[in-house]
């Protein structure tokens, strides 16, 4: 258990009160506990079912990535995803009608993170969308993410054409039942799919587990195959589902994010801890949570990523950064493990040396090295894990995120991939709030 030494509150002559002043040892102990819990978390995939059933989503509620957001301040891709999900749910049958519902406040928006979920890019989760459910076998938390559609013209990047909606329905009606039955079969056999060892292995196979999930998706396909073939579905259906998984190297992104959410959730709410437990963006703002400061968001304007562009697009097309996927960096992989994934520079830009330097820099702002996530090229050194607010402000180094890039207009989709630094202002504001609450 955490034990701390804390001085008494003291009054000053003008009646103002200074906060409790917490000792260095107490902060270190709290941070150690928070990060150990993150590292010890054991997320296992247990189910895939509609968000209404697993997360209790009711009425016209849509969850989204990042800090809280209103329709009128939402970016193009976020609005596109909200429009698409509204039509997908049958609440509207046209873009115009969906926009009207959103403008009139008929659509209730809430953050994925408020529901222990994490969704990539717009991160929109609607009640009937299937969500992966992960259970932390160590700490008991349940976390969620939606299914990955692929790249390009997809809902999470703000596209909502009929093709996009048809794919979502097919995923819900065809893919989800097969994967749900597979998950249940694995659980029955006592072989639930454990995400931590899978991520650990994928990092040694060239994935960063944020923007490169090639190895992870292959491992997933390999592990579920014996159980999927015994689900009783027709071979034709199984072949379609297998083909869908095979065709999309980002199949495992969402489950990886739910795993990251489980890990960081385990380290959340540790008193006196200065460890960051959520970093996320909604396309308008970027925001963080800090372990000891509960679910209070600290936000600043979301930056625009730098990267490589799909043919025909340039930086001027890019929307400010969005997505809950930076939960991977928060949990000690993703951009923090770029040194494990040299091939990723062909997707996000930069050089192999640059990728190595990103990981090296992240050690300066983190509490420790991961026990399980190892980087072969660094002599199997653990990835940097446990972002410490104080270290960011002392070094001026901000967390580096691998990210996809959405077009700034609704309805277009993904236009590139790259990297982005989280804005330092959120860490400044959080640190001030921390000192107000605990001293320092």
């Amino acid at each position, binding site marked *: 258990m955490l034990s701390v030494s804390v001085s008494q509150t003291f009054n000053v002559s003008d009646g103002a009160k200074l906060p409790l002043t917490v000792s260095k040892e107490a902060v270190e102990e709290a941070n150690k506990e928070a990060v150990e819990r993150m590292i010890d978390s054991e997320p296992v995939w247990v189910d895939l079912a509609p968000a209404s059933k697993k997360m209790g989503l009711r009425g016209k509620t849509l969850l989204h990535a990042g800090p809280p957001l209103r329709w009128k301040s939402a970016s193009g891709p976020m609005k596109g995803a909200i429009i698409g999900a509204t039509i997908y749910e049958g609440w509207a049958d046209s873009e115009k009608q969906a926009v009207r519902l959103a403008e009139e406040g008929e659509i209730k928006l809430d953050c994925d993170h408020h529901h222990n979920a994490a969704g990539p890019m717009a991160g929109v989760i609607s009640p009937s969308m299937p969500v992966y459910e992960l259970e932390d076998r160590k700490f008991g938390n349940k976390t969620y993410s939606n299914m990955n559609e692929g790249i390009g013209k997809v809902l999470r990047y703000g596209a909502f054409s009929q093709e996009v909606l048809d794919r979502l329905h097919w995923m819900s009606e065809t893919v989800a039942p097969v994967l749900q039955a597979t998950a249940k079969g694995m659980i029955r056999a006592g072989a639930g799919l454990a995400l931590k060892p899978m991520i650990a292995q994928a990092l040694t196979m060239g994935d960063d587990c944020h923007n490169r999930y090639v190895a992870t998706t292959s491992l997933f396909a390999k592990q579920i195959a014996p159980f999927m073939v015994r689900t009783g579905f027709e071979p034709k259906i199984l072949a379609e589902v297998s083909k869908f998984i095979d065709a999309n190297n980002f199949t495992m992104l969402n489950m990886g994010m739910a795993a990251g959410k489980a890990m960081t959730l385990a380290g959340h709410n540790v008193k006196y801890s200065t460890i960051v437990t959520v970093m996320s963006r909604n396309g308008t703002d970027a925001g963080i949570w800090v372990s000891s400061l509960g679910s209070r968001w600290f936000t600043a304007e979301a930056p625009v990523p730098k990267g490589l562009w799909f043919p025909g697009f340039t930086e001027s097309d890019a929307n400010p950064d969005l997505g809950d996927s930076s939960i991977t960096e928060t949990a000690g992989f993703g951009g923090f493990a770029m040194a494990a994934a040299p091939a990723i520079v062909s997707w996000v830009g930069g050089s192999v040396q640059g990728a190595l330097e990103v990981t090296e820099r992240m050690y300066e702002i983190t509490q420790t090295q991961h026990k399980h996530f190892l980087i072969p090229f660094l002599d199997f050194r653990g990835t940097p894990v446990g972002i410490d607010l104080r270290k960011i402000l002392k070094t001026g*180094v901000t967390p580096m995120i691998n990210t996809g890039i959405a077009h700034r207009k609704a309805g277009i989709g993904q236009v590139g991939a790259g990297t982005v630094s989280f804005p330092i202002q959120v860490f400044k504001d959080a*640190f001030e709030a921390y000192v107000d609450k605990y001293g320092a």
Partner: protein
Amino acid sequence: MNPRASNIGDLAARILSTGIWGEVTRVFPRSVYVRSEDDFILLLWGELKSPMTINIEGGNNVGGRIRVGERCGLRRDALELDMGEIDVRNAEMFRSTLLDSRKIVLPNGPALAKGVAMLRSLYDVSPSGPALITDPALKSFVRGTLSPFASGRSTGIYSPARYLPLIGRGGGFTPAGDDFVCGVVGTFNYVARCRKFRQVIIPPALLQSRTIPESATILRYSAKGYFDEGMEKLILGTLDGSGRFYNELMSVAHRGHTSGIDMSLGVLLGEAAMAQSSGEGSALKECIDVLWNL
């Protein structure tokens, strides 16, 4: 095409325009020190503006070609070095704003103590640990010089000898003790100019033998009100009456080894001593409690 300067500090322009050639004394990957008689200026491949700095666009030290010992001078449209010229035609002048007096309000004890609490926390995660704040020389200075001044019992704050034990003390290119004294004396003298009371003077000759020449020069000019833009914003932020200077404080905290936090601590403790000496609460005592009386 010649490299270009984006900014020139007013002091750097003056020092390098005397017609006397300066000489490069130290070369780092992104900065070069140039001595001109008793002064130093800094060529910086970075954005931080200061009165003593010339900011140069591009990656680094002109491909690493600048060498120790080469000559340097400002001649009309160019900064001339043996290796070539740096175009200064479109460079903007950075002018110091702490040379003039203005209406100021000293912050209260809780506001200052909160700032000190932030700095103390950042010392905890410095690679060298909380070196300066555990140094007996600092405790001795605060308890033996600042506290008596704050209580109206001593004018020892004007004695140069009181500062000397801190000069050259601690780690970093500019020693931590120097940075702290920069903060204390620079802020003290700025408030003194604004409120028209006596300023602290530390004769340059006393500094020379105790620290590196670059740091002695920085100390000398900070006492007169020459600070970089980040420190200027911090000092002005602490004195604007809002009590809200934490953003500025955290913007300088990452500087150097611990230079940013050492200098900021000097600013806050110097102001705390002045606030308490003005009869407004017990600001310095509150700061000391946060620093050492846990």
